[in-house]
């Protein structure tokens, strides 16, 4: 082994034993450090996983959604629009969507009622999301009564419950037949909520959207790539906000670390004095202290990160649920795709290890320049 490596090994050995000797003192710091890593790491892993999830799941969303606006407000779109879209080249498929919200006073939740295109649902039946099934205690074959726009109660038989695997997108869905939907909301035939378009060549999406706005000036197109982009930005933004809020905690931790590092006990001071007197150089002491910081940081980082990992992926971010949930009754139960991302880890590193190290540089140096002859006085 090269000499310098042996030297580092000796320093690490020494610093490890000196850390263990002062277990009680270091445990407090380690605990706070780990907690900081845990909190920031949880936020990071959680938002990152949601971003990934949104990106992966919404890949299947329609390329373009076209909404009609009346006086700037979202309005129903007549079938004649659909026909006119047919003349735009590059549009592979166009489908009028029927969907809307329904507020259920019994559970105080908003449902999303929707008419599926690719599956047929009988007139008196409904397919519900797992969230609704859970909240209302419904299972396949149960009956469910809603009050329609005309005040008449409508009873539906639950034909199926959507798989709980897709809860993150389907928790609040009620799939009903077109007839029922129109009757229930009082929407005349020939009117749709909006239009979903499939485009053959993905490179043409923008061009087509532009043509559509010229062709149908009262509509607005929403592109899938924009949805993805916006979700990406929204989650990154939200993570950033939480980080900004937590900067206060990081600062408090930095002050704590600084205080710990500069408030050496008389015993530690004496130790450094002895080391210097028996032949350790200032640089050796700095390196020794550096290894001490590195060991503490490594331990805190690993433990904190693992704890965050378990929290986010195995307890499904239980600590965040109340915040995200808000007043939502239909909060989806979901498990996220575990990912470890270099960028995220590096960012976390800069929010935790970097400030800790900065806070300890000057105190370490101060300790290291102890006069070697101090022990003789």
């Amino acid at each position, binding site marked *: 082994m090269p000499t310098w490596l*042996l*030297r580092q090994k*000796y320093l690490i050995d020494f610093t490890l*034993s000196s850390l263990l*000797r002062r277990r009680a003192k270091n445990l407090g710091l380690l605990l706070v450090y780990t907690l900081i890593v845990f909190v920031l790491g949880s936020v990071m892993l959680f938002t990152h996983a949601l971003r990934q999830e949104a990106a992966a799941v919404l890949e299947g969303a329609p390329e373009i959604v076209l909404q009609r606006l009346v006086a700037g407000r979202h309005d129903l779109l007549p079938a004649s629009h659909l026909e006119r879209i047919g003349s735009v080249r590059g549009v592979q498929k166009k489908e009028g969507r029927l969907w809307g919200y329904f507020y259920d006073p019994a559970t105080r939740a908003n449902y999303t009622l929707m008419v599926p295109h690719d599956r047929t649902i009988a007139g008196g039946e409904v397919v519900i999301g797992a969230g609704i099934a859970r909240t209302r205690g419904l299972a396949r074959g149960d009956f469910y009564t809603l009050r329609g726009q005309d005040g008449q109660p409508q009873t539906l038989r639950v034909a199926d419950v959507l798989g709980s695997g897709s809860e993150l997108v389907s928790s609040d869905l009620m799939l009903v037949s077109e007839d029922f939907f129109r009757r229930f909301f009082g929407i005349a035939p020939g009117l749709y909520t909006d239009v979903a378009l499939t485009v053959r060549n993905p490179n043409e999406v923008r061009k087509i959207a532009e043509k559509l706005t010229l062709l149908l000036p009262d509509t607005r197109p929403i592109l899938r790539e924009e949805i993805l982009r916006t979700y990406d930005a929204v989650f990154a933004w939200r993570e950033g906000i939480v980080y900004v809020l937590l900067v206060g905690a990081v600062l408090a931790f930095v002050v704590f670390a600084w205080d710990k590092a500069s408030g050496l006990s008389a015993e530690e001071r004496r130790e450094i004095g002895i080391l*210097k007197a*028996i*032949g350790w150089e200032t640089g050796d002491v700095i390196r020794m202290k550096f290894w001490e910081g590195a060991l503490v940081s490594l331990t805190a980082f690993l433990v904190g990160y693992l704890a965050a990992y378990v929290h986010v992926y195995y307890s499904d971010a239980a600590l965040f649920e109340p915040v995200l949930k808000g007043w939502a009754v239909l909060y989806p139960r979901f498990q996220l795709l575990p990912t470890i991302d270099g960028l995220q880890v590096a960012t976390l590193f800069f929010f935790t290890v970097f400030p800790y190290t900065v806070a300890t540089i000057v105190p370490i140096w101060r300790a290291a320049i102890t006069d070697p002859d101090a022990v*003789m006085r």
Partner: protein
Amino acid sequence: MIELREVRKAFNQGRTNEFWAIRGVSLTLEDNRVTVLKGPSGSGKTTLLSMIGCLSRPTEGRILLEGRALSGLPERFLTEVRRRTFGFIFQQFNLIKGLSVLENVMLPAYPIGRPRGALETEASELLERFALGEKARYRVEWLSGGEAQRTAICRALINGPRILVADEPTANLDTRLSRDFMSIVRDLRAVGKTVLLSSHDPEVYDSPFVDRVVQMRDGRVTDC
């Protein structure tokens, strides 16, 4: 051979409480001798000893080791010289609590980066020589005063220094242990070491194993 030429040392220089601890000492110390710096407390023995042992630098004057000037060297290089040339035995022994006897003995060798096996063998041999073999794995808090001092001596010897510096070595020992210490000093001289002591204990400066006594008072040498 160590030569001191008009060495002076000030503390708190340039401030109102400026204090000259050493006020012009010229002295030559030969190799393989036992020399005692004798004087009342505050006479500058310890300050002089720390400058000779490269623990601190003189404010003025020169110190030469084998003809090489040490006094102008920055701390980094002084440490280098100190590590290889001097072994220290302190009044309070200054062992590091919580570490074993063996680890304490090996400490001065850590920054050199010698292979662990060789270092451990050497440290164990030293401990055997000073009858501490069985206590190698003990923690230093459990040692008696005499054992603690012998551990400190082993530690001073681990890097194979030519010169041993001991500051008031017998201040915390009873008469019997002080005599034991002086016989260790005799043995060290017998194997070719130079020993430099500071003391105001007659057991030390009147000991038959001492070659030379340097009397100090108020930062000056009054008799050598």
